């Protein structure tokens, strides 16, 4: 057992079709957006992650390298990998009592009352999200893993 426990635990879904290292990258980013991870927090050591998830250590290192490349974390030799900065334009905007979140929660309740299933709401939300963000050139870092393959096929 590590004396100082890490601030996040990864869940690996082998059937999701998403590359394992990308799942770690995405879960870390999600935690950064939600404020579960904050600057200075230590990510679990590769050894801890692989012992819990039974995935290959190189997969974890690949994910951490990707996060490091994006400037989100930094590896400190002999100490571990630490969070450098948070994600999301306004960190406070995702807090439990933030106005945007309260409005969204309110909207979700209305959608449910109107008889929409969870999947319907997800689809609707994604569609609105796509049309809203496609107009102003997003940075799309979440699709990084796929873009390499696209390059080769050109």
């Amino acid at each position, binding site marked *: 057992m590590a004396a100082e426990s890490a601030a996040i635990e990864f869940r690996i879904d082998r059937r999701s079709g998403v590359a394992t290292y990308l799942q770690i990258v995405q879960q870390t980013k999600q935690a950064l957006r939600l404020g579960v991870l904050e600057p200075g927090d230590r990510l679990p050591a590769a050894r801890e992650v692989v012992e819990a998830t039974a995935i290959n250590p190189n997969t974890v290192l690949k994910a951490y390298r990707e996060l490091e490349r994006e400037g989100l974390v930094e590896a400190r030799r002999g100490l571990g990998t630490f969070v450098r900065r948070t994600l999301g334009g306004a960190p406070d905007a995702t807090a439990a009592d933030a106005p945007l979140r309260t409005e969204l929660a309110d909207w979700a309740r209305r959608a449910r009352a109107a008889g929409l299933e969870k999947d319907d709401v997800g689809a609707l939300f994604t569609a609105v999200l796509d049309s809203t963000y496609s107009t102003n050139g997003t940075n799309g870092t979440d699709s990084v893993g796929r873009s390499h393959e696209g390059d*080769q096929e050109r």
Partner: protein
Amino acid sequence: MTGVAIEAHGLGKTYGRRGGGHRALHDCSFRLPTGRVCALVGPNGAGKSTLLNLAAGLDRPGAGSLAVLGSTDPAAVRDRIAYVAQDKPLYPQLTVADTLWAGAELNPGRWDRATADRIAGTLPRTARVRALSGGQRTRLALALALGKRPELMLLDEPMADLDPLARHELMGVLMAETAEHGTTIVMSSHILTELEGACDYLLFVDGGRVRLGGEAEDIVSAHVLLTGQARDLAPHTVVESRTTGRQLTALVRKEGPVDTATWAVTQPTLEELLLAHLRSPEAPPLLTPSAAAAGTRAEAVSA
């Protein structure tokens, strides 16, 4: 620095009498770098166990050469190798405690008692090996193997007897071992999904030779699944193709850029890739640069 854990050149092994003998391995060449977790996969009777037996130094090749951890005589480096054979050979009359004690006595200077004890976990120490279940025997065999602190672990069908929980736990233990000590691990299985995710290297053995070898990721990304109107697939190497009406579905090895205007391109899974190769015995072998044995550019020479 990465060294070479196993290097085979033209390895051959035939069982039984000449004439009617069974060729378990034939002209098998590959290289496995150290620090990798390698899935040794292939159908039943492909030569997986024979290969592990030779690498453990328990048997001698009939042809070719084999170097393990830098030694051309694998038996000479046996103290740095742990081998768990498929039938988990243990002494049935010994108790669990006796077996662990024997592990310590037989591996002086190397034995890591804490690790062995941790992996043996809740196994009743006074129980005799013969009274243990298959899964418990596997656990004890892995405790011995890991207690030895080997540089190379050869595991033949290690997960076959284990329930899903024990499988996950022990796979996690193996991954932690390699994360911490850089241990090279070779695990055989005919069930790929058992190993996918844990292994970063692949040796696909079929018909006594290596048909695919190298970094699992590179091997997968060297191939694509193409779907489109039936047409010429050149210049790509076709592993398998199927035509339904006007539609052609093909798994190809990329030789240059893929025309994305005429084909719908998807990435096959490792499993799809292996199945396609199993159905197409004539597909040429593919070894990535790190998996090609030094000096085996011998296709032309042997012709």
